């Protein structure tokens, strides 16, 4: 199978939030990398996972499908997914696929974190 061309680094942003820094391509081949990152991001009890798309280079419909399954998994665990760093093009894709109705999009990490802190 074609290898995933993506790396995902996980870091803690606060007691309740983790950030996944995505660099590269999100296609169906990124499934293991994405799910491993999700598991790592939530292993410390984080209830909010913030996806940083600043390093996103390419995404196809298989990649959008992965984000949907990750979102469902997070919802089941009563966790929230947020996103920032999406270019206008990828924001349009979120709107087209209606993913933006379930994943709130912010301009930057500070705004995403402020929303977490404001809600708690």
């Amino acid at each position, binding site marked *: 199978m074609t290898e995933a061309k993506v790396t995902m680094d996980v870091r803690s942003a606060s007691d309740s939030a983790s950030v996944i820094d995505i660099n590269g391509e999100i296609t169906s081949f990124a499934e293991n990398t994405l799910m491993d990152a999700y598991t790592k991001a939530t292993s410390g009890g984080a209830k909010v996972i913030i996806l940083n798309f600043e390093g996103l280079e390419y995404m196809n*419909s298989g990649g959008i*499908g992965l984000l949907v399954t990750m979102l469902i998994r997070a919802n*089941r665990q009563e966790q929230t997914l947020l996103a920032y760093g999406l270019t206008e093009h990828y924001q349009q894709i979120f*709107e087209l696929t*209606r993913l933006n109705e379930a994943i709130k999009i912010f301009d930057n990490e500070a705004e995403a974190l402020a929303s977490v802190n404001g809600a708690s």
Partner: protein
Amino acid sequence: MSEEQIDQTESRDAAHWAAPVSKLEVSDVPSGAVSLNVEGRHVVGPLQGFGQLWQKTYRVRLTDVEVTPEDVVGLLKQNLPEYMPDNSRFYPSVTGVEPGEVVLINATLPGIPGGIATGVMVLYSDDESFTLMCPEGHPESGWNTFSAYEEDGATIAQIQSLARANDPIFEFGFRFMGGAKQQEKIWNSVLARITEHYGVVAQVETRKSLVDNRIQWSQAKNVWYNAALRSMINLPIRMTRRVFKRGSSA
């Protein structure tokens, strides 16, 4: 990241995605197709439907044949209408399977006189895959991705759906009226046609995964657009029109 880099990044996949649309438009109706329940509808993804969310993957391994993933996807784009079984006819626009284009679908469903007229939008299309997204009222809310890739020296042809029933009636139909089985037969049949084309003898593998077992009761209202009911209600009108058309051409 500089602005120039961002522009270059966007151009890599931008041409493969449909342009943002608020409502679907049917620009031309292919001969023999019924265009109903598509014009003016919003597209709906796996998050908007009513029933349980399933990911179903159908794949077949094309062994002992020199064929690339691009060949397989090109073949499928070219022959999708012919590869669909008689109970589920696809009518692409003259442009074909291109991002943003609408593919009309006229299908038969158990217990639905006159069948169901619906369609899908080409959400994404590149050389190795394409994805069809459903509109409001379609039996499913979500999308189907047709793709091919290399694995261990062979090309795999794959169809993967990520979808849930759009409303309570379709959920009942999928679960208890044989709808899910009929759908599985359709995709098995399409992959079988690909193996026939390449002269390969291979079994289609099916993998089903229940992604979300919850029913989204807030989406029960989707029944308003139910394409099966609307097709049935529209049947007398279509039949009357056909009679008058015959009369005027006689």
